């Protein structure tokens, strides 16, 4: 990263949030039904890093809790949070609509329908087992994305309003299918509904590894479009006059953003609010310049979802709370406060 060119503000925010992220990892791993002391947690994590070899002063059970149970879940939360927040910034930027979020083109409805189909028709009768569900959800998301694009394409162009309306239409239709499936699902109803509310429970390193390429590819691509996001904020015609092929750029960014969201949803279910409020929150804090907004939103999304998941798994002794409940419960009032104070300032 070119630090020399960065404004002090960007540098402060990026470094501050990175530090907060690292601290959050350690503290979140400490917390749970078995709470671990800070030094032990720290040593177990450090011992996994290359070139560090510590004498194990901890039990095998403790190491297993940290390494096999909590760390994969922590990293999955970080990845999903980063993915949703970054793709939220991208959607709001390219559609220039404050209500845009990563699910606006209907990928979550498509994924939910795919997941419900897998739960109802395939999984129990298949040797493939658990791995079918994410695959079905991902395919469902892609199909709904394809429908939205084919509906909104006119003369080779995608108008922002048409895209959003096509997303609404497809969501409504797929929602009807989904409600029907849920209504006739019988004893699997609870499983479908719990999947839709989102959960990071029983995350494994394998889940992390599946999602990681999307994160790396999508984030790299979107982070290279920072200046384009700024110029497109001036309007599509103005951006064209500045030499951007807006239609091509818009399509590429929406496809990448939707792919990220679909991948995340198919692994952990529909986690709302992150992709909507983190971009707004960071825009209120650091301003509209995507050169700062995009990286800080990635970091903030990761931190936000990590703490939401930590609360989801530790708040109640007996059971987990769906993470979507936490993101909305924490996010909505906080957002309302920011909205109010932000409006008063300007």
């Amino acid at each position, binding site marked *: 990263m070119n630090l020399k060119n960065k404004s002090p503000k960007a540098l402060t925010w990026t470094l501050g949030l990175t530090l907060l992220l690292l601290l959050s990892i350690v503290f979140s791993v400490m917390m749970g039904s078995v709470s671990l002391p800070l030094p032990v947690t720290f040593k177990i994590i450090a011992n996994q890093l290359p070139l560090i070899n510590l004498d194990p002063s901890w039990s095998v059970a403790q190491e297993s809790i940290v390494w096999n149970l909590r760390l994969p879940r922590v990293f999955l939360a970080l990845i999903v949070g980063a993915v949703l927040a970054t793709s939220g910034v991208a959607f709001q930027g390219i559609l220039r609509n404050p209500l845009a979020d990563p699910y606006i083109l209907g990928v979550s409805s498509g994924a939910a329908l795919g997941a419900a189909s897998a739960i109802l028709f395939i999984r129990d009768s298949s040797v493939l087992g658990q791995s079918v569900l994410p695959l079905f959800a991902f395919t469902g998301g892609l199909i709904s994305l394809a429908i939205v694009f084919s509906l909104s394409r006119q003369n080779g162009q995608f108008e922002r309003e048409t895209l959003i309306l096509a997303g609404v239409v497809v969501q409504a239709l797929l929602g009807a299918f989904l409600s029907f499936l849920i209504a006739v699902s019988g004893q699997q109803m609870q499983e479908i509904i719990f999947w839709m509310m989102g959960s990071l429970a029983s995350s494994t390193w394998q889940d992390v590894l599946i999602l990681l390429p999307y994160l790396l590819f999508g984030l790299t691509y979107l982070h290279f479009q920072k200046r384009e996001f700024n110029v497109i904020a001036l*309007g599509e015609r103005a951006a064209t006059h500045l030499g951007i092929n807006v239609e091509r750029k818009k399509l590429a960014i929406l496809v990448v953003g939707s792919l990220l969201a679909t991948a995340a949803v198919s692994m952990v279910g529909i986690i709302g609010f992150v992709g909507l409020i983190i971009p707004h929150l960071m825009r209120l804090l650091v301003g509209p310049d995507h050169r700062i907004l995009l990286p800080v939103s990635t970091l903030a999304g990761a931190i936000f979802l990590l703490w939401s998941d930590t609360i989801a798994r530790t708040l109640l002794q007996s059971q987990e709370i769906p993470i979507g409940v936490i993101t909305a419960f924490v996010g909505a009032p906080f957002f309302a406060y920011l909205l109010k104070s932000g409006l008063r300032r300007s």
Partner: protein
Amino acid sequence: MNLFEIQDLNQHYGAHAVLQDLSLTIGQGDMFGIIGPNGSGKSTLISTISGILPPTSGGILFNGRPLSAYSAKELALQIAVLEQDGTPALPFTVEQVVSMGRYPWLKPFSDLGPHDKAVVENILKKLNLWPKRAQKINTLSGGQRQLVSLARAMAQEPQVLILDEPTTYLDIGHQLLVMDHVRQWHDELGISIIMVLHDLNIAGQYCDHVLLLDQGKIVTWGNKDEVMSAEVLAQVYKADLVQVLHPKLGVPQFLLSGK
């Protein structure tokens, strides 16, 4: 070589013909005005020659080469366009918005270099925007925001500046300020200016050549003094006009006489 050579240009929206059989040339270094009543196709013509709207039929040569052969990037290096609605009221600072004018000149994935920053600083100072550089443009008046838009276009360092009604929403002070900057820029750097104007007196004062459009067709075009006569304009605009000679500048000016 002419800047623009337009031959039998037609522009249709569906079955509706917005421009019909336009043929004209625009010279290098010209201050070229496009006038005509509402709905005469002025903005469509601007969109077409700026490369945003491909023509239904007809040919446009820009610097001797077909306009359609230029990429968006190549055009952005030569043509800057000031849209009618200008810059939206965003919380970007004045300096950020003006810096975006450098976008076509930047290498892929890189930010503004020292030269780009010098260009931006120079322009901000020239337009007296330097003290306001950290101010957000959503806090500026319409007139100030138009100056910022002009500064952004200047930062693009184009050969051609196209303006779509640059003075429509401005008070008279800002109208003259914007137009004087445009003319000064034209005089100093020899760039070509093409502008759609509603105000006939501004057109009479600032243009060398004028194109008069009515219902998508050319009424007349050429030297300002020949095109701008009260008789023709009154007919096209369906308004009674009295032509006078500007006592100080010696250019055609028009007084409105309502019924």
